[in-house]
């Protein structure tokens, strides 16, 4: 019973940390647009948190540039345990147009384990909401 309760609470209140690893900030703007009155992430209990300590879900945008690589790993380790990584946008999934560039590491899953991918360049705010909610429902 406790297990079900904990699972319910994890699904219902995902706190999000936004991490930009050298993206073209289109996805970052769309993530912020999802907070605005029109798409309102708070309906699902999603709060944008600043510190890695408070976050459950890390939303990562951008193909990890070489300079950002170790910072992404360090922040990933700081997030407390039941954590999920969502690769947002085509850049985080496969490097998008920057595939094969000398200064990017291809995609996010080369650097940290990724649980969910949200396609789109840039993602639509509703795709972001759908992605995070689906990720949490899939937790069994």
């Amino acid at each position, binding site marked *: 019973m406790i297990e079900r309760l904990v699972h319910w609470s994890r699904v219902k209140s995902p706190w999000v940390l936004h991490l930009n690893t050298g993206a073209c900030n289109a996805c970052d703007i769309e993530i912020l647009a999802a907070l605005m009155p029109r798409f309102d992430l708070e309906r699902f209990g999603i709060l944008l948190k600043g510190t890695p300590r408070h976050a459950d879900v890390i939303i990562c945008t951008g193909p990890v540039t070489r300079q950002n690589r170790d910072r992404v790993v360090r922040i990933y380790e700081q997030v407390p345990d039941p954590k999920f990584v969502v690769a947002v946008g085509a850049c985080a999934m496969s490097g998008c147009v920057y595939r094969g560039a000398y*200064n990017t590491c291809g995609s996010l899953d080369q650097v940290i384990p990724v649980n969910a991918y949200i396609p789109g360049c840039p993602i639509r705010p509703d795709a972001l909401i759908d992605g995070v909610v689906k990720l949490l429902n899939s937790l069994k």
Partner: protein
Amino acid sequence: MNVEAIVQKINSEIKDKVQEVSVTAPLRINIKVDRGQLLAVLQYLKDQFGFTHMATVSGLDLGEQFEVIYHMANNLATINVRILTPRSDPRIPSTCSVIPGAILYERELQDMFGLVVENIPDPRPLLLADDWPAGEYPLRKDWHFNRPAEIIPGGK
């Protein structure tokens, strides 16, 4: 002071410093200059025609030579001042004394092409990562990037 007047004045006054002047497109003037004369020509353009705004500095790898183009603009036209440096000794004078705003573009040249910019106020690398191996200049034609094998998470 339209484009022809500017070309006219350049031909008459600094003929010796300039190797070739041409108007390639409407509002675009091209000047080929020797490496040594660069600062004098830039100073002249700045004082005479008010070419104070340095839009950017482009580097070109022509095989055995590097060509560096200084794009200057004023409220009327844009002028491209071009200089050539042999690949063996890629040294160019820094234009920060004439136009302070060119500092970032010259640091970028140093990063990308390995051109040595003499008496540049701030020679540190600009764009490349801290752990970038020294001596490798990405934008040179002969430099190729061998992509590391892609590990597919959870794959075979």
